C-alpha cells in the first residue's frame, strides 16, 4: 500500500454554439439624446462578463469609449430574440449581432455629422474619444454629443441599428452522416499530476497545466478569470461532483452545499494557464467561445493521470475513492 504518483494529458476541440434548428441572436443599438449608446439584448450575463464584452464590441464598432455604452439585457420578453447564454455562444453570436447593429447605427451617426459639417459621410472618421473628424482635416470636427442632439432635436433621425447573426441549421448528408454543426472551434490541452492513495482510493491533484486556444481574447483579464475558475471546475467534475453517485439509484445524492462537494479554498491544485490567441474567421473581432470548454480537458487528464498512477481505467465520473478501490480489487482478481 502506497501513495502513487501519475501524470495524464488530454486535448479537446470545443464547438462554439450549437446546431439544432439554427442558432440566431439579434441585437438592437440606439443612441440617447446625448450620444451615449444603448445595446438591447435578450442574451443574459451569468457573471461571465457578457455586458462588458458587448459594451467593448459596440464601442469599438461605433468608435466611442466603452463607458459611453450601456448594455440592457433586462427582459427576454421585450428584447430582440436570442437563443440564450449557453454552449459558449454568447460572445460569438451576440457579439456578431452587436457589430452589425452598431455598424448601422454608426452609418446614421456619420450621415447626421456629415449634414452638420457639410461634407460627405464617407469623408468622416471617429477618434475613439467621442468625436467625428474630417479625414485629413481633423480641425473640422463635431462631438458625438452634438451629433446626437442634432439627430434628435433638429434632423429627426434615429441613430440606431439592427443586428442579426444566424448560424443556419446543418443537416447531415444522407450517405455519410457528415455535417457541419459548428463554424468555430476552441481548443485546449491539459497536463495533470495526481497522487493516488491505493489504500484509501483518495486522489489529490498536485498540478494542472492548461493551454487554451480561444481566438482573440477581447478582455484578457476576464478570459483569464474564466479559465482559472473553469480549470478548478474541471477538477471538481473529475473527482467530486454528481447529484446521483449510484445512478440510476438516487440514494446518497447531495442535497445541499454540505453534501454536494466541490474543492474548497484549501483543496486547490497548483494551476497554470496559458492563453493562445488565434483569431477566428467568423468571430466578433476574432473571438471564439472559451466558456464551457475551459472546464473540459482536466477531466480526461485526471482520469489518465489516475491510470498512470495505479493502472486502472475509471470510465464513470466522478472518479471517487470507491470507484478506484473497486477497480483495483477487480484488477487484482
Amino acid at each position: 500500500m502506497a501513495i502513487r504518483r501519475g501524470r495524464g494529458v488530454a486535448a479537446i476541440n470545443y464547438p462554439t454554439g450549437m446546431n439544432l434548428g439554427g442558432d440566431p441572436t439579434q441585437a438592437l443599438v440606439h443612441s440617447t439624446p446625448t450620444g451615449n449608446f444603448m445595446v438591447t439584448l435578450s442574451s443574459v450575463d451569468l457573471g461571465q462578463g457578457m455586458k462588458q464584452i458587448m459594451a467593448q464590441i459596440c464601442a469599438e464598432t461605433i468608435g466611442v469609449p466603452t463607458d459611453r455604452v450601456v448594455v440592457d439585457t433586462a427582459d427576454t420578453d421585450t428584447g430582440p430574440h436570442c437563443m440564450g447564454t449557453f454552449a459558449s455562444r454568447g460572445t460569438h453570436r451576440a457579439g456578431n449581432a452587436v457589430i452589425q447593429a452598431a455598424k448601422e447605427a454608426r452609418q446614421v451617426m456619420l450621415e447626421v455629422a456629415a449634414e452638420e459639417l457639410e461634407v460627405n459621410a464617407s469623408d468622416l472618421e471617429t477618434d475613439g474619444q467621442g468625436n467625428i473628424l474630417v479625414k485629413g482635416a481633423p480641425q473640422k470636427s463635431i462631438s458625438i454629443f452634438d451629433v446626437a442632439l442634432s439627430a434628435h432635436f433638429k434632423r429627426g433621425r434615429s441613430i440606431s441599428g439592427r443586428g442579426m447573426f444566424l448560424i443556419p441549421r446543418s443537416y447531415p448528408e444522407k450517405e455519410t452522416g457528415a455535417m457541419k454543426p459548428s463554424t468555430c472551434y476552441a481548443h485546449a490541452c491539459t497536463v495533470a499530476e495526481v497522487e493516488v492513495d491505493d489504500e484509501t482510493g483518495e486522489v489529490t491533484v498536485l498540478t494542472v497545466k492548461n493551454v487554451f486556444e480561444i481566438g482573440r481574447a477581447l478582455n484578457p483579464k476576464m478570459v483569464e478569470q474564466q479559465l482559472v475558475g473553469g480549470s478548478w471546475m474541471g477538477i471538481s467534475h473529475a473527482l467530486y461532483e454528481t447529484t446521483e453517485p449510484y445512478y440510476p439509484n438516487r440514494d446518497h445524492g447531495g442535497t445541499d452545499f454540505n453534501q454536494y462537494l466541490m474543492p474548497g479554498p484549501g483543496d486547490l491544485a497548483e494551476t497554470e494557464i496559458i492563453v493562445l490567441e488565434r483569431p477566428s474567421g467568423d468571430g466578433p473581432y476574432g473571438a471564439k467561445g472559451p466558456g464551457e470548454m475551459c472546464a473540459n480537458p482536466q477531466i480526461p487528464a485526471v482520469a489518465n493521470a489516475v491510470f498512470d498512477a495505479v493502472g486502472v481505467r475509471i470510465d464513470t465520473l466522478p472518479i471517487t475513492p470507491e470507484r478506484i478501490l473497486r477497480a483495483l480489487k477487480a484488477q487484482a482478481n
Partner: protein
Amino acid sequence: MAKVPVQFTLNGSEKAEFVDGGTTLLNALRDKIGDTSPKGGCHQGTCGACSVIVDGELRLSCLTLAETCNGATITTTSGLAEGGVLHPLQRAFLDTFASQCGFCTPGMIMAAKVLLDHTPNPSRDEVVEALSGNICRCTGYEPIIQAVLTAARANSQNAA
C-alpha cells in the same frame, strides 16, 4: 404574533424596526431595512454568502435572530466604502478580478475583513482558513485568496 422591537447600529446609523419573533438578521437587514448586500445563498449556514460583522465577529446572518442583536454594532459590505472611495478589500477584489457572478462576494469580503482586522498580515494558509466557510462557485477561489493578500499588502504599506 406580536412584533418584537429591535434596535442596532448598522454601518454607523441607528436602526429601529419591529420584526416578527424569529425573524433572521438576514431577513431583517434585507427586507425591513433594505440593505441587500448580505445574500441568502442556502439559509442553513453552509455557504457564507449572508456573512456580516456583529460586534467585531463574523456571523452568519441567516442563522442569527434579529432580536438577539439589540444594541449591537453591525457592519455589512455596503457600509465599507467611505464617501465614494472603496474599502481596500473592495479595491483588491476588483483589481484581482475576484468576483464573477458576485453572489458570494459580500460574504467573502466580510470574512476577509474580520481576518485582516485581527491579523493584518496573514499567511496564505490563514487566508484559506478564514475563507473556508464561504462557498464560491465561479472563481476557483485563487483570485479571492489573491485579493485578500493584496488588500493586506496595501494595508501594511499604508501603515508603514
